[in-house]
């Protein structure tokens, strides 16, 4: 397989990339790690007139921490973020999920922000971005910079809702609160395959072991990931160790999907809906166990 012809430009800065993108035709594309884009170009399932390589733009390879959030630049490769001590300490949910993205030989080149931009239906990183209330830092032509919540970006049945011809410069993830537990569960056909379904969850508990707040994000079940708001609300004030409550919440989370369950060669929508329930239960259970360890609160194991 060989890609069809296109032009290639190494962008000097993020602003340069957006200027060139704005002046090019609609088939121009941003190129980061290229681990999804290049095979798609080779298979000619998508076409590009021009590729704008942003990997050498100054600043885009930075990871920065400010109170309450971690910002990951668009040129940061997954293998680096997986091992970043700052990220492991503040948002361990992200490296855990990255361990499910393809294989190490792909993560050495692929980027975290590229996953957010590509928004594959079976992608893990968009799901984590929802669970961690991430905001995308988007640059448009003329130097216009906006912070757009991941929730808005993925509030479409497929793909992303972003300003046209813009560049995601970085993504800012909320750091976990003290004592906040997290869990990630994925159902996949074989290691390295896309998620049939995956769930990222976080929990904050009261001293009593009751749930103060829950965050549940589900991916793979529908073409876009979503936050299970009703399921989250159903858990507020409940005992985190109450297995039947957790199971009920997981049923709600799977059922409240805003779009139809996805059927493809690998799994039916009905299977995905069922697997999603299991994924939510497991992610919440892991999250509770991590809360327990951090706060010292005691409850019965599920």
């Amino acid at each position, binding site marked *: *397989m*060989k*890609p*069809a*012809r*296109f*032009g*290639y430009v*190494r962008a000097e800065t993020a602003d340069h990339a957006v200027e060139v993108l704005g002046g090019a035709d609609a088939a121009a594309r941003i*190129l980061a790690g*290229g*681990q999804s884009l*290049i*095979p798609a*170009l*080779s*298979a000619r399932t998508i076409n590009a007139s021009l*590729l704008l*390589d942003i*990997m*050498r733009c100054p600043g885009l390879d930075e990871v920065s921490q400010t109170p309450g959030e971690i910002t990951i630049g668009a040129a940061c490769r997954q*293998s680096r973020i997986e091992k970043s001590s700052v990220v492991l300490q503040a948002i361990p949910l992200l490296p855990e999920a990255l*361990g499910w993205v*393809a*294989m*190490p*030989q*792909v993560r*050495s*080149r692929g980027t975290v922000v590229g996953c957010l931009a590509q928004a594959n239906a079976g992608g893990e990183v968009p799901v984590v971005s929802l669970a961690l209330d991430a905001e995308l830092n988007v640059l448009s032509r003329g130097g216009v910079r906006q912070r757009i919540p991941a929730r808005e970006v993925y509030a479409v049945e497929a793909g992303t809702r972003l300003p046209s011809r813009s560049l995601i410069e970085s993504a800012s993830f909320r750091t976990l609160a003290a004592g906040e537990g997290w869990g990630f569960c994925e159902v996949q056909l*074989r*290691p*390295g395959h896309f998620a049939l379904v995956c769930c990222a969850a976080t929990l904050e508990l009261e001293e009593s072991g009751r749930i103060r707040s829950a965050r549940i994000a589900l991916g793979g079940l529908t073409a876009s990931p979503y936050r299970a708001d009703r399921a989250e609300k159903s858990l507020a004030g409940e005992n985190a160790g109450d297995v039947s409550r957790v199971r009920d919440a997981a049923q709600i989370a799977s059922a409240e999907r805003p779009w139809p369950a996805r059927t493809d060669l690998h799994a039916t929508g009905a299977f995905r809906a069922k697997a999603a329930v299991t994924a939510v239960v497991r992610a919440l259970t892991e999250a509770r166990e991590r809360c327990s360890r951090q706060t010292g609160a005691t409850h019965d194991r599920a």
Partner: protein
Amino acid sequence: MTGPDSAREKTVRGDSSESQTALSVTVNGKEVRTLVADRLLLSDFLREHLGLTALKVACGEGACGACTIVIDGEPARSCTLLAVQTEGAEILTLEGLNAPEGLNHVQQIFQQQHALQCGYCTPGWLMTVYSMIQRSIHPDSPEVGQYLSGHLCRCTGYRNIWAAVRQALGAAKDEYPSRK
């Protein structure tokens, strides 16, 4: 480094409408400066332009691992990258790990363990094993499974490969011949 074959050069570069970009990379310790078509895949650049044919192209979409090489110390697919993306990078292919004579240490282990049959996938496995040895990955680490899941073998089966890789990881780091 062997120079590009002129006949091939013509087919790849002959068309004046093909857009090209200057590329400077280090391949197996040698600097290469050339002009390549923007759409040229790294796997084709290494095989067709530089004659480094140890890496194999099979799926062409990053799934099978036959084209795995090492870029800046990390194993990577050469079929899911454009040559132009590797500007300034240090690339290592299996040719860079060859022993002066016969098989290198890890190749010997693969032979002893019968970890290959047709051999098409083997160069890819060897590059991943090289990276794992460089990172001192423990043979019992769960990372071993992660790395090996990045390769497909259609004839030998994985048990022998698994055994060979474990043996290779148990060996002292400096036993793997380095190109230096």
